[in-house]
């Protein structure tokens, strides 16, 4: 038997290079050329969790991503970590999607793939970081979902007890499969690919689907399927004084205290 496990991943710009992402003032487009792309860090935790469940109960791990052609690299890396099959949802019709349209696209792909016992997502991405696609996908699939997952325990093969983060504590949630879990960083330490597992990638299945392949109606995906849209992007101007104190340490500190008083901060 075994479990059918799906892991949703996203290719994102490396956060250390966010300061290189610039706005083209004329066109209003975001320029991110030359910024290296990685698998969203929490999505690695999601994959690790899926792989561990597979190792424990047996089953199959599918990784799925919606993105441009180069997102296939992220899926290949996931295969190298141990996933069995990769699916890239790649079509200009998917472009400009907000979180609901993204969740819709994933929904149609999942429907085509058939039943899953467990779907894992990273709790949020480092780029837009909305944390919305996971819960929205679960809602469309009409399955239970938990965000902020820190720990998962199997009560029996159909029941989970999950610990989820709260601001100053945690909540325990019991849920039945099929379910969708959005995981946080502390849940595990994602494995690294081995030489052996990298060599196996070429033998693994990689599917690329367009909108018509998954039967997604044009009005529910991409820009058309997005209730929200960007009305403008602006550079964030921080109006700070930027006064660097001069002199010896003592002098700098004295000047700082005096200045903070003038500013009414102390």
């Amino acid at each position, binding site marked *: 038997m075994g479990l059918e496990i799906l892991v949703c991943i996203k290719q994102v*710009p490396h956060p250390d290079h*966010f300061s290189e992402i610039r706005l083209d003032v004329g066109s209003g487009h975001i320029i991110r050329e030359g910024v290296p792309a990685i698998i969203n860090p929490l999505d690695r935790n999601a994959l690790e969790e899926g792989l561990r469940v597979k190792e424990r109960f047996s089953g199959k791990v599918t990784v799925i991503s919606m993105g441009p052609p180069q997102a296939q690299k992220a899926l290949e890396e996931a295969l190298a970590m141990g996933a069995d099959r990769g699916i890239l949802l790649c079509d200009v019709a998917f472009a400009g999607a907000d979180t609901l349209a993204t969740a819709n696209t994933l929904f149609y792909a999942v429907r085509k793939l058939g039943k899953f016992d467990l779907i894992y997502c990273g709790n949020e991405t480092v780029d837009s970081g909305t944390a919305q696609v996971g819960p929205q996908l679960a809602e469309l699939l009409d399955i239970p979902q938990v*965000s902020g997952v820190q720990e998962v325990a199997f009560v029996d093969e159909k029941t989970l007890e999950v610990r989820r983060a709260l601001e100053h504590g945690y909540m325990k949630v019991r849920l039945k499969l099929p379910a969708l879990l959005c995981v946080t960083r502390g849940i595990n330490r994602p494995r690294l690919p081995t030489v052996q597992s990298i060599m196996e990638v070429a033998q693994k299945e990689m599917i690329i689907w367009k909108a018509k392949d998954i039967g997604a109606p044009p009005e529910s995906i991409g820009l058309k399927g997005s209730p*929200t*849209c960007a009305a403008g992007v602006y550079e964030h101007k921080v109006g700070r004084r*930027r006064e660097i104190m001069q002199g010896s340490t003592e002098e700098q*500190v004295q000047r700082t205290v005096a200045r903070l008083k003038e500013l009414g*901060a102390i």
Partner: protein
Amino acid sequence: MSNSGEIWVIGEQRRGRLEEVSLELLSKGTALSQRMGVTLSSVLLGDEVEEIARELVFHGAEKVYLLEDARLRYYQSEAYARLLSEVIKEHEPQIILIGATEIGMELAPKVAAKLRTGLTAHCIDLYVGEVDDTPHLIHVVPGWGGNLVMHIICPQRRPQVVTVKPGVLPKAVRDENKKGKIIRVKPDVRDEDFRWIETVEVVEEPPQGKSLESADVVVCGGWGMNALGDFSRVQELADILGGVVAGTRPAMDKGWVEEAWMIGQSGKTVSPGLFVSLGASGAMHYTTGFMGSKVVLAVDHNPQAPIFHVADVGIVGDLREVLPCLIAELKKDRMPRKF
């Protein structure tokens, strides 16, 4: 923008305690409702929480839809999302504001997906503005680690749902003379709401003393504190300033602060009167967490560190010298001058 349809603030209570972000939403909700000429209402789910409903009124809600049931004592994923979307369908508000808390960030997308409507995550501001000569509610969100600011609109579908980052907006002022209607809605809680998913336990201890979000002074230590070996002097400085201690992600990784005290994009956002950054270089995903502070003081050894671009007052130097000196100077300053 329409002049029909209320603005709703989803009140969040945990074990009978109102989350502070609800008061922040009420201040923004009040401003928007006055600007648009519509009613500001609130919705509250829980068990025996009428007192909290009254607090929502004292903070500006003209109506509170109150859904009470013993089984709604804790946040319950399916029950809360279903009941909330049903009460929304019945009353057709045009704007829904939800706090971007751990729970709000889960509840909002569920509700928005049930309603197949638009949702914008963790806004830092909201206002009515014109886009192509048409008034819209502008959702202001930080992008790319705070490097860019994006304006999002939801042109057609209603209601438009937004989550708002806690600690960014000012809180509504409490006034016991404010009048509002508490409307009891009998919630149709069903067994099947708990069949697939149920919250069985909530363990939460809000920290003693001041919360990070409400502190007037926040002293935040970063990786550079490594040179001092520990965090005790950060605490000492915070104590003198009457503030609280926070940390960057590297400081959390070091175990110096707990996750609840981490400043940044994936942590907390604070807007204190004084924010002190110690030994942090100023990566975007950190600095976005204190953008709204009135005054920022930064200390770091590297004069080129980007932290000094987002600081009002900067000290370039070795923390091992600067910090004791700063503590001593402030102590001296705090001493009674003469008798």
